[in-house]
């Protein structure tokens, strides 16, 4: 099982260690540092590193490496999932997951880690259980604690720990009962030079914020559940009812959680909301090149495309860009070689265009690789797959909750090749 955890920042400083069995010397991290060095970019560090006596399984999140040490055969996915869960718990507790915040709350962090794993076995990882055991820090609480001398560690066994619904605690009370759902869809796509779709798919999630008293039993149904053939549910969802009736029936956790995620694959014809006309070329001589990019709407279902940003990863030899944008602003960072064009709202009447010249390192040969474009965008009030929530019913409680559904479509890994 998970033996030890080391937190290491981007600069290579080891700033926290936790051992769940015997202590393992931090020198074991040398193997990690070696791999880190070899990878150049922090993103490229291999997730599983083999050392003579241990395995190091690591993730890179929020500029922190979470490095775990394994000594026996353990499912690596379990470890990686767990490390992400730790990061999420920090996020949940402290609002962000950064080196500073972890150092500031080191005792709570330590208490949390102790509570999440016992001898390397997961113990309590559900946010609501943890919060009953160890209360998250707030300014108000620390004031109250100093005055009354009470502690921020729960004294009683969390109610959810052993019930068959560990994700919800008993005795929740709200004056306003409300349930909100966000349907968020991300388009992952690769378009080729001519604008043809090479590959496209939709990654969707339904995030929920449910603040309801007691033990509400909810049923969410869709207008067109057939769209969903590849789904992953929060443990609270009753899978049998989904199989038989295609409705999502569940007793929700308290507060924010991800109800489900789904995946609509290439075969289902994913709509591509924008097109890009581009021409980036470099001249054989003269150390210069030209760039001309135009973005226009394609299948937007009548909605407006907002927050449109085009990112171009330029070849190393490009020194600067002298361009003219008809809309928005552009910025070329000569260090990272990234050209960022922030367009904003897409106006179908007057298409935004970025045009001008690029200057290259003098004497350098014409770049061998083609630059690649990444698109970022957002469309409110639309789930691009056409998924629509039909209704939400509640059983088990008497009150009438407020209900709401919001849709938004974003670009995920949306790439245009040149």
């Amino acid at each position: 099982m998970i033996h030890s955890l080391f937190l290491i920042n981007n600069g290579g400083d080891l700033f926290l260690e936790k051992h769940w069995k015997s202590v393992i010397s931090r020198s074991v991290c040398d193997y990690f540092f070696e791999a880190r060095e070899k990878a150049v970019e922090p993103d490229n560090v291999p997730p599983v590193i083999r050392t003579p006596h241990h395995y190091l399984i690591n993730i890179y999140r929020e500029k922190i490496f979470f490095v775990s040490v394994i000594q026996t055969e353990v499912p690596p996915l379990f470890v990686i999932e767990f490390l992400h869960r730790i990061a999420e718990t920090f996020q949940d507790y402290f609002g962000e997951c950064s080196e500073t915040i972890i150092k500031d709350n080191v005792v709570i962090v330590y208490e949390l880690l102790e509570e999440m794993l016992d001898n390397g076995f997961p113990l309590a990882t559900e946010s609501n259980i943890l919060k009953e055991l160890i209360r998250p820090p707030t300014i108000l609480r620390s004031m109250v604690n100093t005055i009354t001398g009470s502690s921020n560690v729960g004294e009683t066994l969390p109610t959810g720990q052993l019930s068959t619904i560990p994700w919800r605690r008993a005795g929740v009370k709200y004056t306003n009962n409300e349930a909100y759902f966000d349907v968020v869809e991300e388009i992952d796509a690769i378009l080729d030079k001519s604008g043809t779709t090479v590959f496209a798919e939709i990654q969707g999630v339904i995030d929920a914020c449910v603040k309801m008293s007691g033990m509400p039993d909810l049923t969410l149904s869709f207008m067109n559940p057939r769209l969903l053939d590849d789904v992953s549910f929060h443990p609270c969802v009753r899978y049998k009812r989904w199989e038989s009736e295609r409705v999502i029936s569940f007793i929700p956790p308290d507060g924010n959680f991800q109800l489900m995620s789904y995946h609509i694959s290439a075969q289902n014809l994913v709509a591509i909301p924008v097109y890009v006309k581009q021409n980036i070329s470099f001249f054989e001589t003269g150390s210069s090149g030209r760039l001309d990019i135009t973005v226009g709407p394609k299948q937007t279902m009548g909605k407006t495309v907002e927050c449109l940003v085009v990112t171009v990863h330029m070849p190393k030899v490009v020194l600067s860009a002298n361009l003219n944008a008809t809309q928005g602003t552009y910025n070329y960072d000569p260090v990272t070689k990234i050209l960022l064009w922030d367009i904003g709202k897409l106006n179908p009447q007057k298409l935004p265009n970025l045009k001008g010249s690029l200057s290259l390192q003098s004497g350098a040969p014409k770049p061998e690789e083609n630059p690649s474009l990444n698109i970022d965008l957002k469309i409110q009030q639309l789930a691009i797959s056409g998924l629509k929530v039909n209704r939400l019913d509640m059983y088990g409680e008497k009150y009438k909750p407020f209900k709401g559904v919001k849709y938004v479509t974003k670009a995920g890994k949306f790439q245009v090749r040149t």
Partner: protein
Amino acid sequence: MEWASQLCENRGLGSKMTDSKYFTTTKKGEIFELKAELNSDKKEKKKEAVKKVIASMTVGKDVSALFPDVVNCMQTDNLELKKLVYLYLMNYAKSQPDMAIMAVNTFVKDCEDPNPLIRALAVRTMGCIRVDKITEYLCEPLRKCLKDEDPYVRKTAAVCVAKLHDINAQLVEDQGFLDTLKDLISDSNPMVVANAVAALSEIAESHPNSNLLDLNPQTINKLLTALNECTEWGQIFILDCLANYTPRDDRESQSICERVTPRLSHANSAVVLSAVKVLMKFMEMLPKDLDYYGTLLKKLAPPLVTLLSAEPELQYVALRNINLIVQKRPEILKHEMKVFFVKYNDPIYVKLEKLDIMIRLASQANIAQVLAELKEYATEVDVDFVRKAVRAIGRCAIKVEQSAERCVSTLLDLIQTKVNYVVQEAIVVIKDIFRKYPNKYESVIATLCENLDSLDEPEARAAMIWIVGEYAERIDNADELLESFLEGFHDESTQVQLQLLTAIVKLFLKKPTETQELVQQVLSLATQDSDNPDLRDRGYIYWRLLSTDPVAAKEVVLAEKPLISEETDLIEPTLLEELICHIGTLASVYHKPPSAFVEGSRGVQHRRIPPRAGSVESAESPDVGQSGSSEAPPAVIPSQGDLLGDLLNLDLAPPTSTVPSVQPSMQMGAMDLLGGGLDSLLGGDIGGSPSMGAGLGAAPTVMPAALGGAPAVGGGLGDLFDLGGGVGMPTGFYVVPKTMWLPAMKAKGLEISGTFARRGGIIQMDMSLTNKAMSVMTDFAIQFNRNSFGMAPAGPLQVLTPLSPNQTIDVSLPLSTNGPVMKMEPLNNLQVAVKNNIDVFYFSCQFPLSLLFVEDGKMERQVFLATWKDIPNDNEAQFQIKDVHLNSDAASNKLQGSNIFTIAKRTVEGQDMLYQSIKLTNSIWVLAEMRVQTGNPNYTLSIKCRAPEVCQFVYQCYEMVLKN
């Protein structure tokens, strides 16, 4: 222990140790301040102080000096304070075992507390304190907690059994905790069941043959019920446990599959992958014509695809597993090619894996898409990725015949880019395409020749030379081209030199008239001016062939070569089957059997997929035929580096897998110059030694039968198995891997490598004799020169059969220590003479001194103390053993395996001192004191002996044993 403390005082290790320690690690003021605060009357102040202590501890500061003060805070009704003190205790108890005893009472009391949270906390913490004295007190409370009325306490206690087992396995067995744990599998609470399963699985890993997880239909049913109700982590443990079960028949198999399938929709990817493992394994048992079988196949694809939209680290592990699944059942993902297309911002480790799977999924139906993608990748920035993409194009051409032409033209386009590394990769793969489709694409040779000058990598140069030699008759200026390479002959790598030699001989045989001078030149370069024995040997062989019988030379050198197989890099089928049973584990990430590499997992059994019920096709691998790729079982490429693989490399580097049934002469083709050696290898020795088996990986159908019992042995695995064997006997005498003692060059073709071992009190010299000459060797004998410890052969060298060319035999020579004595320099030097029918050869080797450590080397304590004092201090030598990650007990166990006996152990200030004795065959006693500090990988070793010259060698033995 009095004697030991005396010893300490003698050595000036007083109790002042602690003070000096913290002065160096923390500021004096800080510790004093904390001490005062910890002893404060105010609760709040106390708590804050403990928090500060914990904070210092987390960043690695040493606050162990505060132990008594912190432990004093333990008796409190404030739960947070209690927890903090527990955290501290777990960290430092090991270094202060006497102090830790003070905490026991509180623990035992807390285990009776009315609040289940406190009961659970107490038993949990106690299990984490790895001090023997505390574990003794743990048994009673643990027994109660395992039967506690509250399931929260029970589930905590279940894990605690695993902890205790880790510390003291015998105790757990004696106390009957394992049985109680087994009973918990039937607990009414699913979380308790899950933890019991997890604990048992962990314990089972260190218990090879125990029947801990005795699965039967009843327990399986209970596990399946618990599966639906426990936490996501519990589901992983239960699914992994289920995967070890072998259902009785296909109906049971189906019902388990049905109940596991809903897990495929879980948000936790580890749950999904564990469920995939269970399904992949159990569906083997289902009849293929069953409707449910088809349904199941369809259900497997979407969750696998979904794994690819997770975080990159998860993607990586998923991709490594998908790689296995695709090899086993290509039909599952055959329509999902596009999800493996590489995205610009994927991390490199994801990109490379995706590329690999794309090739595996490539088929006639999707080849156009794949090629378009690969061409796109060839213009990316990352050099490694670009290279792999170019190679992938070549693999496509070889795999999908219809696409070959397209691939070749794509490669030509890429060559036109003139990007150096792209051109070189392209040439390497084009060589393979020529071998797969001879006489089809030779028109491109002209284009290739244009790029001759830009090739600077050996592999590309060798490939180009091969092409020129092979098609010498169609290239007008072949002689000029080859001559240009010849100029810098000695600066080339061996690969290129060998290739050039062969190519010029080929050229000569094709155009004898104009190239006589050239061939003379290369033969003399190879035979007279080279230090490389391979090159020289090959040069001589060609020379003799050409001078004695040119017709035979033509037949040998220009023989028709076998076609290369279409699928490369396939995992050997038995290994694949085993890996499928281990989906989601580290083994599946490394594509190696679990026995090969995980430390401490001695008990891994080789798992096999159960045979399909009522099916006749289970014997031959049915899926290959189904996927339509080929009728014959896939041939596996011998991995480079093993014996025969190297020989094959002489001519053609990558995919030279051959069809098993072809007669030997045909199979060897151009490599036939090795003649009889290979024939004899093929003749009787398959399965003789693993390394040979590995070389013959091309014959998977023969292998398992020949190797009898060993289940997963196959091509390229020999080395892994050696490793596995080593892990199997952990505490025996450590045997150094064989080293080369006598290179073939110095002994007219006889090569000897060897090592020494002590087995059951008998010293043995293990040798591998290899005949690298052309003729048979017989009449072996061995003799030693006089040496420091009188070692001499106890019997004749047993080489019964003549050693034919290229054969290796392993012999074990028992040694005695009654021979004539003469002091050698260095002390452990041994001079050996070996005779055979050809000549007498001499070499010297050095044996580890531990060879001479006798089994009755355990000294009486009193004698030890007296002797230690008696030996003058001048005879004492101190050494540092660095980077040993063992605790003192493990170290002492290991040493005992080599007859280094620990007489006593004493712990002072967090430092374990081991007192050890050794007796040599000539009755010299060696006394040692080893100091081990927790958390410090460097040991200090003091050795005393009346013959101080042996100290250095004793230290070497310590170092060798502890590090291996």
